[in-house]
């Protein structure tokens, strides 16, 4: 099997330098194939979501409820995490805390070593992508195999997910057919989708039995009952969490809710917002390892709770709203920028609007300060967000954090990383001009009377447009003349 040999190992998260980001965005918008496939896929997903919410009133009230649940949970986050730990421990689940990706990987590698694990089979987990789990395991000689079909395809291709819900959305069926034929022994080229899925299922079925450890993410962790909820469509999540002897779940610290009843509305709005499904095919509730005469289930269950910058967002009342996210991906489906550049161009684990507001906390603003500027602030993301995260406002806030002059004791890692003395001076001049009406009048009088001096090259504007030119006379002149 070549699948274990080829994965994302050796591909660390792309460094999001401003230059690299610009180059990737440039390449992406000029890639006609990419443009066409993302447009088609996003149109499809938007239509599917819209069909799930025919009643705007119901959508509004469900969004309001979901926002309230997430905000309530975050308000009590430290207490809920302790309660979650206590109840999971009581249920026989071993709880681990990791501040950094390295710590999380070390914890899981330690578990793998204790069990002399050779193969870990994985359900879909964006947090595992966030910490480069596959890479860390491969480096230590432990195989990590994706079992979600999209993730499996991406792993075969040696790529990263381009969408948090549909990781292989950038791949055509022909590309997938070639991947399968190339990497899976005994498989001939077929671009019949059903046949491809059957091939993938057959390969993965063997791996579930062979694996020593199953890894999964968590959609909601219920503090009061010590329950881990997992939303999925392929059944691979259930296989990963029940067949191998050891199950490790990993999640960010923000995913906790207090009560079981808080899950129902979030689950409903998650699947409807994400894939336009009324309900997912599978909904798993995991409350602990195999008990007494249970006939199946893992003998050991672990939960790794990861911070990785989340507590930085948590510390600020406005930025805390970032943590309301339930990872549905609706913001990227509706984003005109994501639609045009796809997920890979961002260079972050989480692409699209949510990626722009969450990545700065995970990676620091040094690497990510240009991301929040890559938005026209059209508001489509905020409009569809099921938990009402004001994404555009947070983008503006992060732009401000990046622009601020570097100073001691910054509240954010990398604060001031986008500081440009020239740009800051320009805005200071702008404010002097526009905050002083007499100066403004003099400036606009000159700009209109001497409009023939307007430069023909106007930075990014004239890259694709004819130049802007002031009118011969201002509105205020026309108003005066008329009276």
């Amino acid at each position, binding site marked *: 099997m070549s699948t274990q040999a080829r994965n994302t190992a050796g591909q660390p998260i792309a460094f999001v330098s401003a230059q690299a980001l610009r180059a990737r965005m440039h390449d992406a918008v000029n890639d006609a194939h990419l443009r066409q496939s993302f447009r088609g896929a996003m149109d499809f997903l938007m239509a599917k979501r819209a069909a799930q919410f025919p009643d705007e009133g119901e959508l*509004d009230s469900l969004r309001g409820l979901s926002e309230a649940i997430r905000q309530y949970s975050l308000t009590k986050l430290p207490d809920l995490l302790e309660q979650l730990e206590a109840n999971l421990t009581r249920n026989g689940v071993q709880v681990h805390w990791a501040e950094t990706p390295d710590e999380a990987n070390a914890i899981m590698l330690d578990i793998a070593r204790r069990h002399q694990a050779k193969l870990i089979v994985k359900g879909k987990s964006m947090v595992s992508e966030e910490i480069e789990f596959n890479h860390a395991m491969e480096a230590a000689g432990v195989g990590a195999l994706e079992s979600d079909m999209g993730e499996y395809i991406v792993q075969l291709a040696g790529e990263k997910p381009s969408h948090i819900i549909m990781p292989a959305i950038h791949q055509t069926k022909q590309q997938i057919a070639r991947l399968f034929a190339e990497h899976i022994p005994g498989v001939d080229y077929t671009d019949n989708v059903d046949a491809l899925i059957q091939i993938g299922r057959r390969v993965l079925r063997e791996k579930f039995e062979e694996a020593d450890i199953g890894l999964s993410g968590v959609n909601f962790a219920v503090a009061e009952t010590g329950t881990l909820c997992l939303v999925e469509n392929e059944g691979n999540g259930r296989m990963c969490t029940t067949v191998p002897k050891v199950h490790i779940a990993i999640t960010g610290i923000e995913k906790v809710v207090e009560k079981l009843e808080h899950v129902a509305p979030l689950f409903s709005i998650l699947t409807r917002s994400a894939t336009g499904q009324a309900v997912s095919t599978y909904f798993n509730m995991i409350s602990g390892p195999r008990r007494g005469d249970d006939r199946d289930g893992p003998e050991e269950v672990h939960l790794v709770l990861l911070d990785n910058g989340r507590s930085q967002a948590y510390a600020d009342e406005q930025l805390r709203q970032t943590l309301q996210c339930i990872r549905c991906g609706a913001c990227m489906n509706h984003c*005109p920028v994501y639609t045009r*550049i796809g997920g890979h161009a961002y260079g972050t684990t989480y692409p699209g609007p949510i990626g722009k507001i969450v990545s700065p906390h995970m990676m620091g603003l040094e690497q990510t300060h240009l991301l929040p500027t890559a938005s026209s602030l*059209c*508001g489509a993301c905020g409009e569809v967000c099921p938990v009402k995260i004001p994404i555009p406002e947070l983008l503006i806030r992060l732009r*401000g954090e990046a622009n601020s002059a570097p100073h001691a004791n910054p509240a954010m890692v990398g604060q001031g990383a986008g500081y440009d003395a020239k740009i800051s001076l320009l805005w200071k001049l702008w404010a002097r001009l526009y905050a002083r009406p007499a100066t403004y009048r003099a400036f*606009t009088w000159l700009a209109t009377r001497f409009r023939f001096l307007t430069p023909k090259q106007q930075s990014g504007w004239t890259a694709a447009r004819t130049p*802007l030119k002031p009118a011969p006379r201002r509105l*205020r002149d026309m108003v005066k003349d008329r009276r």
Partner: protein
Amino acid sequence: MSSHTPGTPARTYPPRPEAVYFYATCLVDMFVPEAGMDAITLLEREGIRVIFPDNQTCCGQPAFTSGFPEEARQVVASQLDLFPGDYPIVVPSGSCAGMILWHWEKVIGADPALKARAAAVAARTFELAEFLLHVVGFNRKDEGPATTVTLHTSCSARREMGTHLVGRELLARLGNVSLAHHDHESECCGFGGTFSLKHPDVSTAMVSDKVAALKATGASQLVTADCGCMLNITKRAAREDQDAGRSKPSLPGEHLATFLLRRTGGKQA
């Protein structure tokens, strides 16, 4: 930039006032003054006195959205005293109206007295199209020949002001005008203020798609109530015309105010 979300209860509109303040916006003042003039004429023709505060400059949005809140604050502070009377403030742009309505109170800082003043200004700020429809009850006879136009609603009008159906309704009141809807109508035109300068690749991709969708309707022209979008779209179309050697504009555009006035006999074509 929505601070509110669709479904927010519709605003309460005042009865038709004796006078309004006209807050033209910096873009209209310097780049599209005729749109401002036509908006003023439309209001005056309805018997409403229009006050043009001479100290008006800009709503502060460019600095605010670019992440320079202090610079935005200074400009907003300079504008707070422009509207001493209790008249509605009419703005011929969804984007600037949205800035005043949703962000002035936050931008102005922590001082409760300033906040209260910003909130009071916000409460009586209306986008021109919604004002014409809901307060004025605009209903003039269409005197123009039969034509088909296409309408672009700015993201701010749509998502911050919740007025995306208002433009349609005003056009529907013109008997000889049919409206052609374009593909991906709710999608941004790619302007986004400094976004168009900072990310020209993506902005160009967005505006080119918008131009193509608008042209595909076969409409004779574009109508929009935001000058930012209008300049972005029409200057892109003009550039495409220039590159293709066309002398006649393939996608002429007009501000909604200009179009309404021209169609209802207030202005020569």
